[in-house]
């Protein structure tokens, strides 16, 4: 028996999810300047840190929405998917990894290929999706770029490829490797025909992607601060057993070593490409 009685019944327990103020997903930290940024600010700024200008990765579809003219796009080969030619299994089957990546991105593989316009100029534009198994290049990526190049050749429109990739897809073994030769051979035909091909390298572009189409542009452009190289930094460190210098394999390093035509901030990319395409116009077909 207590001395005092409670006149009001205790509050009903609140729902677990009502107790917390929900903030997750609203804020993000910029790894470059260590500032906390409101995500909406970041998105409104094309995923570029409003404080320091660091370029965050962006999804392929989002990038094209910001880059191309608004209006009708036609997606090419959206349904092309890999059939796991090696029947590859490591700690889990490749097929499962594919299914998970497809569910997470809503794409069949790591490349979005569209026909649209840029400053009124018809273009075919391929954009790699880093969120799909690290943007790795397997037979689907190789085939879609090849078909995009064939489209560019047939319709005499410029080809733009925006890379974001860790390189060839290990789970497709030598099949991935052959895509490097396949795309490069198509680019030879494009070059012969006087069709412009612009390569845009974004963070990261390494391995077999850099060592094939990403470095073969009539213009090779990069976003600021992107990791670009053949061997990944970890592989190099293991080979030479030394720490790598700061800024090694970043866009600025490549520009300094003569591998890029220009570093173009994301906000200026659209205007830059329009400017470049005014110079790089598809040449008329040679008389047969």
């Amino acid at each position: 028996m207590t001395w005092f009685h409670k006149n009001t019944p205790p509050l009903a327990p609140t729902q677990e999810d009502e107790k917390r103020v929900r903030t997750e997903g609203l804020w993000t930290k910029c790894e470059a300047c260590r500032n906390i940024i409101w995500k909406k600010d970041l998105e409104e700024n094309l995923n570029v840190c409003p404080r320091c200008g660091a370029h965050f990765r962006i999804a392929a579809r989002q990038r094209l929405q910001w880059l191309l003219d608004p209006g009708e796009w036609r997606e090419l080969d959206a349904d092309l998917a890999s059939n796991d030619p090696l029947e590859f299994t490591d700690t889990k089957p490749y097929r499962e990894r594919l299914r998970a990546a497809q569910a997470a991105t809503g794409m069949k593989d790591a490349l979005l290929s569209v026909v649209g316009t840029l400053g009124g100029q018809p273009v075919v534009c391929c954009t790699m999706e880093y969120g799909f198994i690290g943007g790795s290049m397997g037979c689907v990526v190789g085939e879609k770029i090849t078909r995009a190049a064939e489209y560019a050749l047939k319709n005499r429109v410029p080809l733009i490829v925006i890379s974001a990739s860790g390189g060839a897809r290990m789970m497709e073994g030598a099949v991935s490797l052959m895509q490097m030769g396949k795309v490069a051979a198509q680019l030879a035909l494009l070059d012969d025909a006087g069709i412009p091909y612009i390569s845009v390298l974004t963070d990261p572009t390494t391995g077999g992607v850099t060592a094939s189409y990403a470095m073969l542009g009539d213009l090779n452009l990069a976003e600021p601060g992107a990791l670009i190289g053949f061997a990944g930094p970890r592989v190099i460190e293991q080979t030479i057993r030394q720490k790598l210098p700061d800024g090694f394999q970043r866009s600025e390093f490549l520009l300094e070593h003569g591998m890029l035509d220009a570093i173009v901030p994301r906000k200026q990319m659209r205007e830059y490409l329009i400017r470049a395409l005014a110079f790089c116009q598809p040449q008329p077909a040679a008389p047969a």
Partner: protein
Amino acid sequence: MDLNMSLPSHSQGADAWQRVLLARHAQRPYFLDYIRDICTDFCELHGDRRFADDEALVGGMAVFRGRQVMVIGQQRGRDLKERMRRNFGQAKPEGYRKALRLMRLAEKFQRPIFSFIDTQGAYPGIDAEERGQAEALAVNLREMARLRVPVLAVIIGEGGSGGALAIGVANRVLMLENSIYSVITPEGCASIMWRDPEKKQAAAEALRLTAPELLRLGLIDEVIPEPEGGAHLHPEQMAATLAEALERNLELFTAFSKMELYQHRVKRYRNAGNFFAH
């Protein structure tokens, strides 16, 4: 590594890892051994005219069964000193640029090109990156595609990723029976996918990097049988079989025009590795 290990030829049971060991065998014939055995009048040509002469990637004029040919290939060293000098067969951008220079020389004088592939991969290092390893490989892929002479590539040991393909865009790609061709070394694949380099045997199996598997996948054109126990046990016999295969494959292109050779190569790669779910 056991230097006396051997593998019965044509055995179906030979697992992928055993072939990896044979492909890397310290006594396996190297590029210049084959040149000595199957060519005469080899005359090495040096340098990329831009930076250096890369001894990991060797090339030159040679006479093959009465015909002038250009031969290029990666060269590993036989002893430690030579291995260091040749950077263990891992070429830098200057090596790949030299190879392209020599291939264009061959094209100018309408000589066929034989490319001998034997490398773990293009060299991953600071200097190679600074001088544009990726660009050097990429340009070779595109420019090899449009060469207007017959190009035959043969993987004689290890075909390591982009560093192999950058001298391997050919009209015909042949592989010695116990050579391997892969997008990554089994050790590299094991560390990334299994996070355990000791899983290299499983990785070798999963990567389908053996000649018979790659033939089945349609990525190469011919498997050249090795002598009983592997190429290193009977190098002269291996060289004779290889020479016969090269001559036979070169014959295929006698009637091709310059443009047809280019188109044939583009088409060969256009049709390689198309595996789509429907």
